[in-house]
């Protein structure tokens, strides 16, 4: 038998190859030079992420597939890949203080972030269930390790263990779902599943439910959100910032891709699930955050709520809805990174603090930071004319146009409830008696805060580039 195989086209996967090879070079560099090379490894890691981002940006915009259809590069993938790479690079930059603390300087940390980002890119480009699972595992395994990287602190190891056990459970559910889907359609490729799913069948529905349950865990949507507050609180703050941005984006991207490309013919079935998950997440995110005193836990509930809002777009199941999800995720990443830049900078002489009460009177001790943080909070609450308002506007619009009036109304109501705790933070900063001042903010955190703050403030001036890019990207899925 002659099986002359030609080499699959590697060019579409170039960003992943750059990151994977680069991570292996960095791990060798760290292994030879030890933990004093942490700073250099982190610097190179940021450069790798930027290089991959540049490659993604210059790639041709038409859709191409490689590795026998397992890997898809389309405008949708490029949009989300850029977003993920920016999120990861900013997270590494914001970790520079953590990485320069002698007993915490571990060169594996930036390497694991690069490997995790590789997994996210693979996840975004997944064209079949096997690529999806491998990308998801590569991303998640690295995340479990970085959650526990501060291994001498009890909370960090608890966060890592909790994340690992629940993550393994969710991977199991996802695999079970994938096997049921494979069993009832005979293929693992999304295009093939879309064909085979047309016949329907109860096995396929069960598989779909389990598959979506596994993905809901990764975006921490209710009822698979239980890990989020504990992991966010326990993990070191720069790592929490990373968790809140890039992995959510990648998981949301694959959620949208699976729903729209693999199961377009059974849209009614996943739509019900997405609507339920969306309502539950928005409600829990709004109400459970009210009682929180720790700002990292508050951000965890806030991110649960935001995933619910983003899913509204997917629930509508239209091009417009997917476009809304993409705009939502972009603005969410900007708001989250900016807020976490402030949380990382919450540090007094005696050490970091993370209670909301510690922000008291920030407007008098640090007026600039307080102003930008207040803008970010208004934006998270969705108050016009800030970016967060437009994010919600596009998903609600898509839901209304798709006839999901109840969903849109519930979304508006919960975002009003959610506004309470965002505004409470602004009130603490502006009207409470000043607490002792924080130590000066590090330069890179200031830059991140300023850039994201200006982005949410001035987004309404020129929203066209983002909206157009999202529109082109969303069309490539349908």
């Amino acid at each position, binding site marked *: *038998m002659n*099986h002359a*195989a030609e080499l*699959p086209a590697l060019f579409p*996967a170039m960003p992943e190859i750059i990151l*994977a090879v680069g991570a*292996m070079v960095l*791990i060798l560099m760290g292994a030879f030079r030890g933990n004093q090379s942490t700073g250099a490894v982190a610097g190179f890691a940021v450069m790798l992420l930027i290089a991959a981002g540049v490659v993604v940006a210059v790639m041709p915009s038409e859709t191409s597939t490689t*590795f*026998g259809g*397992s*890997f898809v590069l389309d405008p949708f993938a490029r949009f989300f890949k850029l977003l993920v790479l920016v999120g990861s690079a900013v997270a590494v930059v914001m970790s520079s203080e953590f990485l320069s603390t002698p007993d915490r300087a*571990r060169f*594996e940390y930036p*390497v*694991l972030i690069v*490997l*995790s980002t*590789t*997994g996210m890119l*693979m996840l975004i480009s997944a064209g079949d269930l*096997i*690529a999806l699972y*491998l*990308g998801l*595992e*590569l991303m998640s*395994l*690295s995340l*479990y*390790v970085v959650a*526990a*990287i501060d*291994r001498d602190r009890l909370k960090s190891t608890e966060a*890592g263990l909790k994340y690992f056990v629940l993550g393994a459970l969710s991977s199991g559910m996802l695999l079970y779902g994938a096997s*049921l889907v494979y069993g*009832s*359609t*005979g*293929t*693992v*490729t999304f295009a*093939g599943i879309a*064909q*085979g799913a*047309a*016949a329907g*069948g*109860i*096995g396929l529905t*069960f598989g779909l439910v389990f598959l979506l349950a596994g993905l809901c865990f990764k975006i921490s949507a209710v009822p698979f959100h239980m890990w989020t507050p504990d992991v966010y609180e326990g993990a070191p703050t720069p790592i929490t910032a990373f968790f809140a941005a890039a992995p959510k984006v990648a998981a949301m991207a694959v959620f949208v891709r699976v729903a729209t490309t693999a199961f377009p013919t059974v849209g009614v079935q996943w739509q019900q699930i997405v609507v339920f998950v969306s309502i539950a997440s928005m409600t829990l995110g709004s109400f459970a955050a009210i009682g929180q005193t720790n700002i990292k836990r508050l951000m965890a509930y806030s991110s649960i709520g935001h995933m619910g809002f983003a899913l509204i777009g997917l629930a509508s199941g239209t091009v417009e809805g997917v476009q809304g999800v993409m705009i939502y995720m972009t603005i969410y990443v900007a708001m989250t990174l900016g807020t976490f830049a402030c949380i990382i900078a919450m540090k007094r002489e005696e050490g970091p603090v993370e209670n909301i009460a510690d922000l008291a009177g920030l407007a008098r001790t640090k007026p600039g930071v307080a102003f930008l943080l207040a803008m970010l909070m208004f934006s998270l609450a969705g108050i016009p004319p800030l970016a967060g308002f437009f994010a919600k506007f596009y998903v609600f619009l898509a839901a209304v146009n798709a006839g999901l009036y109840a969903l849109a109304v519930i979304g508006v109501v919960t975002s009003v409830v959610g506004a309470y705790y965002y505004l409470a933070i602004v009130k603490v900063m502006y009207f409470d008696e000043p607490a002792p001042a924080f130590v000066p903010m590090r330069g890179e955190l200031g830059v991140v805060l300023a850039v994201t703050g200006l982005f949410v403030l001035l987004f309404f001036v020129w929203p066209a580039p983002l909206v157009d890019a999202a529109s082109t990207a969303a069309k490539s899925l349908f």
Partner: protein
Amino acid sequence: MIPALFFYLFAGVCVASALMVVASRNPVHSVLFLILAFVNAAGLFILMGAEFLAMILVVVYVGAVAVLFLFVVMMLDVDFVQLRHGAMQYLPVGTLIGLVLLVELLLVTGAWVIGPGVQKTVALPIPTGVSNAQALGLVLYTRYVYFFQAAGLVLLVSMIGAIVLTLRHKPGVRRQVISDQLARRKEAIIELRNVRPGQGL
């Protein structure tokens, strides 16, 4: 006739030993029953013509994983009877969940229809005339090179993770430094004494 006989033999022993894994009181017996279940599952694979999977199952699961289990069970002094104490109070809930799952499974498999388009969408036809290992080898580095490399990366991450989270450099551990050993001179470490008879040192 003969394959059917062997199928029921392997399947029956497999299910029975799987039951015994849970039911036996002695953890070492549990592991041994687990090995028996694996071996019978390998027999089922051979009946299906998947000899490579059968061998892998025996080599990896019986040879490595189960023996590792056995070591852990024998080395850790875990009182399994104590652990199982109170398991009975979860019996009602467990039975209920088991029943629900059973009904779900029956619903799923009872109405199971292989989709009409399945034959057309099969990723790879089953190759004829080659052994399993050869058939896998023909596609592993070509059609599935992406998955192969991705799985390799996942394993790399798990290795890094295990080292990051558990390796501790203890101070005061004496390690072998071969260059230091080779650089030692006789003069620096050996002292020659002329010991007189009857006096000692």
